[in-house]
């Protein structure tokens, strides 16, 4: 070996070692940097997943809040899923009677809310891929609604003046809206019950779901729960709804409330609605007047023609005993609302949100006999106008008037005065007695076989002793007989040409001033175009026909209402 070769080798080895160490260092550091980058990216991935999970969870809380509010609105709008709380069908039978007590109402409301909530939860469940490739999966949604009634501080005493000699413990009490209230409870024996007062009831909701958010290789998964407490007085509204049903039972059991004695249908509808309000309003106003309001109370109504036994779509035996007359088909509605600002209601038809209180829409559908021709023979009524309808021989006839069900109607089939002494003037579309024809008769036999005294008969047809100079044969129509002095005799029966009856007036009820015996129209008096037989009819009040479950007490029906107790009407 040459001299110095060991030094050279040593130097070379040293150089290689140094280079190797530096390379190792550089490699290690570079690896570290790469891993740092990977960690950063992973951290970003984790953060994105975690943040999206948080935001989705928060968003779902709002989704469940809005859904729960709409669910409660649904409950009120659909009357807890019972379309008509009181229903009398076309055969006169009670088809449905829903009049829940407070406890029943609470159970039914909670049941409805739990079932109806599925409409909201089912459509939310599933997978959603966001535009930034985050996958959200929602499954296993469960909802549970409850109802907490207002709690009162019974069992404890509160002394704001500190006069209690027992142990006074300051306490906090959670309210339905999540806030807290300070109070004192007096615990003389140290065992006093905790008490809580809140002004309203609360609908509680607990909605949980499996929420999974995944992004690249990171998954965030948990069962998250939303708990809600929504202040309400819904049970007060249900109680008012029950009272409304009670008033509808009273209304249906009181035929004079909807008896057809009117000169046109519009007047009838107004009168019926007014009668309903008269019955319902006082009762409804007594139910929680501080917490609820009656937003609307009214009727949607129509009259159905029952002209002839056996051909009507109605089993009229139960509704109109003679099977001829008019049937009132009415849908009564009462919208009760809470007395507060309310929440945002989604009006799907208008596609908008409207702030309004929770409300309950209670409806009742009834078919009631408005006119029974067996009790109103020869009485005229008005559908479109006075005197266009008449009951005759237990059937209902029209004189050119169109009533729903007209295809079944009995258009006046007789040869007017020749047969019945009643004529149908198709020009004016009204009925009238054949007065001119009667005047020409030698005897004073009246219309339809009724017997009149000569004086009355002559009075009826403008004889001279009443001061009329017209003759019957000169009269152009039953309505325009010229009288002494030129006054028109336009009243249907009692011509207004009497000296003591103001021109244009009608004669009041039978036997009452100014319908004296002298001035009766034959045997008839007039009230709003309807004639009553003064001489032959004795007014008797038939015993009332009471609804099912009620009993007759004198001239009244009495029913037991679970809320109002015994009610007679």
């Amino acid at each position, binding site marked *: 070996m040459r001299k110095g070769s060991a030094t050279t080798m040593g130097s070379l080895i040293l150089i290689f070692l*140094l280079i190797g160490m*530096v390379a190792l260092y550089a490699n290690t550091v570079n690896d570290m940097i790469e891993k740092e*980058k990977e960690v*950063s990216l992973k951290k970003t991935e984790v953060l994105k997943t975690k943040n999206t999970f948080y935001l989705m969870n928060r*968003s779902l809380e709002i989704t469940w809040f809005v859904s729960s509010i709409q669910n409660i609105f649904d409950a009120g709008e659909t009357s807890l899923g019972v379309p008509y709380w009181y229903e009398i069908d076309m055969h006169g039978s009670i088809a449905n009677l829903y009049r829940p007590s407070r406890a029943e109402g609470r159970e039914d409301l909670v049941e409805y809310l739990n079932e109806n909530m599925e409409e909201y939860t089912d459509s939310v469940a599933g997978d959603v891929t*966001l535009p930034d490739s985050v996958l959200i999966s929602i499954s296993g949604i469960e909802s549970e609604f409850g109802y907490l009634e207002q709690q009162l501080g019974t069992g404890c005493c509160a002394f704001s003046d500190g006069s209690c000699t027992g142990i006074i413990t300051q306490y906090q009490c959670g309210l339905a809206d999540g806030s807290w209230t300070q109070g004192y409870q007096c615990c003389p024996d140290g065992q006093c019950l905790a008490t809580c007062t809140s002004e309203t009831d609360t609908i509680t909701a607990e909605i949980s779901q499996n929420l999974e958010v995944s992004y690249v290789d990171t998954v965030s998964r948990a069962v998250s729960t939303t708990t809600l407490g929504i202040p309400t007085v819904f049970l007060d509204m249900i109680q008012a709804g029950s009272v409304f049903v009670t008033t509808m039972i009273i209304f249906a059991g009181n035929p004079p409330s909807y008896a057809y004695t009117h000169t046109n249908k519009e007047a009838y509808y107004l009168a019926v609605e007014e009668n309903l309000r008269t019955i319902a309003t006082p009762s409804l106003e007594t139910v929680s007047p501080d917490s609820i309001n009656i937003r609307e109370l009214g009727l949607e109504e129509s009259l159905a023609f029952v002209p002839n036994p056996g051909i009507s779509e109605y089993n009229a035996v139960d509704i109109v005993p003679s099977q001829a007359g008019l049937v009132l088909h009415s849908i009564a509605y009462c919208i009760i609302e809470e007395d507060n600002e309310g929440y945002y209601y989604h009006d799907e038809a208008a596609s908008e949100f409207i702030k309004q209180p929770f409300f309950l829409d209670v409806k009742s559908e009834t078919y009631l006999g408005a006119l029974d021709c067996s009790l109103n023979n020869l009485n005229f009524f008005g559908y479109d106008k006075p005197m266009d309808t008449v009951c005759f021989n237990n059937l209902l006839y029209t004189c050119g008037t169109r009533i729903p069900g007209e295809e079944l109607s009995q258009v006046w089939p007789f040869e007017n005065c020749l047969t019945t002494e009643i004529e149908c003037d198709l020009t004016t579309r009204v009925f009238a007695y054949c007065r001119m024809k009667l005047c020409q008769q030698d005897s004073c036999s009246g219309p339809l076989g009724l017997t009149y005294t000569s004086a009355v008969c002559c009075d009826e047809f403008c004889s001279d002793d009443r001061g009329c100079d017209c003759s019957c044969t000169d009269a152009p129509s039953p309505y325009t007989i010229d009288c002494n002095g030129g006054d028109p005799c336009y009243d249907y029966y009692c011509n207004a040409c009497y000296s003591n009856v103001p021109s244009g007036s009608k004669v009041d009820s039978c036997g009452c001033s100014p319908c004296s015996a002298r001035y009766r129209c034959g045997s008839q008096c007039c009230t709003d175009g309807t004639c009553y037989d003064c001489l032959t009819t004795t007014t008797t009040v038939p015993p009332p026909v009471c609804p099912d479950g009620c009993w007759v007490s004198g001239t009244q029906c009495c029913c037991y209402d679970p809320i109002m107790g015994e009610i007679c009407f």
Partner: protein
Amino acid sequence: MKGFIEDITWTALVWIVVIVLLALVLAHFLVISLPWGPGSIKYSIMFSDFVNRPYTVAGALTYYKIEDRQLLEHSLESVIVSSIERAKSQAVIKDLESFMKSYDTDYQVTLSNSNIIFSIGKKHKLSTEALVPLLYKGILGYLKVNVR
């Protein structure tokens, strides 16, 4: 003295290599230690903050109340009816602009379903985005928050 020159050459060469390698290590160290260096911790934190910032803002917005409702309720109801007017949420735009100004940064907040319902601010090209999905009875919308 035979071999003396060779000894000196190798020694010098070793020193040169050592100095060069030390210079390389120093340079490498300096590069990775600089605040803007690719491997710095600060870089990592800045990056995380940059990515996280819109979520922080969006998280705050989810609790922001405008008039009688929270922003998210306004947003969800607007998405349902595709209009802030029909959701009675006109106040959202003005209040939200005022809220976002407090962050003193470039931003854009957009509410959309299949259409854009409203959008405020201007998106910066170096911004990142947070999405708040809004769900209701099969309707899907987004509240999108872009922040630089």
